[in-house]
């Protein structure tokens, strides 16, 4: 991850502030930075979203393709995640530098979605054992200012909400084999139910307290962070400890509770916002990348 050098005096300043629930930019320990979400930014995808959280910019594109279902689960489609750390984000990512981080992020995303209720995979099945929809979720990191997991998970939820999968039906052709036909109406499509898609909350341990949405400076002062992925009901789908430090079990329990609370509170306003954006329809002013 991109790092900044922080002096000892700055570290002490940040630690003392966090102890009193006052961070360098004036936020409380559980406050997020200003977040901007826009969906449907890339026209070639089936669904896309761009999220900027402070100075972190993430772009997610979802493409639906027809593929063969996995042998163990013939009645379900599946999702494939790929995270690309663009060299635009920081010079460290030039060439193969960003691969390690990209692999770590993709693997965490696979774990987060590795359960039965996040996405209804059965709705992605076209014909059991033969055809299914495969959703390729591609994440592009444009700018890196800490807290990548949170921004990525919000962007994925928004992009999946925005995804329009064309409706297909099977028909028999002359030889008796099955053929897939796309419906003639380009607006006839299936939407995904993203109610249960979890959101990731990263909590960095700074001093004795945990902060949500840490900036790079705060990250440099912490030795360990906990990544928690929470659904809107409060179920936890993935917990991971990252960083080279160790955590006390009691502090882990406290952090999990905070993470669950913050994560749960994130879903309702997000869904409301996405619905509002959807309802604006064609009249919506597109901001895109230069706004």
């Amino acid at each position, binding site marked *: 991850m991109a790092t900044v050098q922080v002096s000892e005096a700055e570290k002490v300043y940040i630690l003392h502030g966090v102890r009193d629930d006052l961070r360098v930019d004036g936020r409380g320990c559980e406050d997020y930075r200003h977040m901007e979400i826009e969906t449907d930014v890339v026209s070639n995808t089936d669904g896309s979203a761009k999220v900027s959280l402070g100075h972190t910019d993430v772009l997610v594109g979802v493409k639906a393709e027809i593929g063969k279902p996995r042998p*163990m689960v013939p009645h379900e489609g599946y999702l494939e995640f790929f995270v690309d750390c663009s060299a635009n984000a920081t010079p460290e990512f030039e060439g193969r530098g960003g691969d390690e981080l990209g692999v770590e992020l993709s693997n965490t995303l696979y774990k987060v979605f590795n359960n039965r209720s996040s996405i209804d995979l059965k709705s992605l099945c076209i014909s059991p054992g033969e055809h299914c929809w495969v959703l390729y979720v591609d994440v592009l990191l444009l700018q890196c200012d800490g807290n990548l997991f949170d921004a990525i998970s919000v962007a994925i939820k928004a992009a999946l909400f925005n995804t329009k999968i064309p409706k297909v039906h099977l028909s028999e052709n002359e030889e008796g084999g099955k053929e897939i036909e796309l419906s003639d109406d380009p607006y006839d499509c299936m939407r995904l139910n993203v109610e249960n898609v979890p959101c990731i909350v990263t909590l960095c341990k700074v001093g004795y307290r945990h902060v949500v949405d840490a900036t790079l400076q705060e990250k440099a002062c912490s030795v360990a962070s906990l990544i928690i992925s929470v659904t809107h009901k409060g179920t936890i789908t993935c*917990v991971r*400890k990252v960083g*080279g*430090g160790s955590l006390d*079990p009691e502090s*882990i*329990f406290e952090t999990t*509770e905070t993470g669950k609370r913050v994560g749960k509170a994130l879903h309702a306003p997000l869904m409301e916002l996405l619905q509002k954006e959807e309802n604006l329809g064609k009249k919506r002013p597109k901001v895109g990348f230069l706004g």
Partner: protein
Amino acid sequence: MPVDTKRVRGPEVSQSPSLFLCKTAANKSFTQKDARVDGRQRGQVDVRSVFVRCGLISQAKGSAYIEAGNTKLICCVYGPREMERKDETDMKSGRLMTDMRFAPFSCRERGSWIQGSDEKDLSLMLLESLRPGVCLHKYPRSQIEVNVMVLENDGSVLAHAVTCASMALADAGIEMYDLVLGCSIRQESATYLIDPTYLEENGCNLASGSGDNFGSLTVAFLPSLNQISGLQSDGEMGEDILTGGVRTCIEGCFKLYPVIQQALTKAVRRKAPPSES
């Protein structure tokens, strides 16, 4: 994803015979009151008994072998060596490099020699679990390499890898704050299965059980410091179930601790020069 071009894997459309086997096994439903297949209890801290031995590999600085049920792992430690990359900005402390590989014959289906993303992920988690335990500030500008090879995968591989690696580090004489022990648990609605076998870990995906709280959790723990150095979970669980699971894993680690300590003292005695008599 790199493809193995040196070996002929058979035609593309061929499928492994184990896929057809599984369908008959899945029909057997695991009810809540059944004892586990190997005779252990559900809902109790019943870890598999382990066999550990240090100092197997003469070429490595330190090595350890662990066997828990049918899971067999071997770990070698090389180092401290001079760091390869000279452009490291932080020269004040050493670097720990971990690598975890599965032998192709270790799982039910033949794996590939090329490292997949699963192995990279496990190596990263092993690194994060071991780093808090090693006194890296005592080895500036050096790197310590830890290589774990899974010989047979019968469940809770990461947990045993952590234990094996910390034993190998101790055997190599690397200074550590404490041993890092690993324990994993499989949550199944109301009960939990500690130290699950491969079938218990993966069998739940086929079960048509409804409801929440299906997941697995792995914890790496430093017993005498009471610190958790690694935590990883997936599946879906409520927060209280997760908390209970972590406490259970900590208990499991405490159960393992005396065994590991004994094995290490035996290894030290064996290495020590014979006393003058």
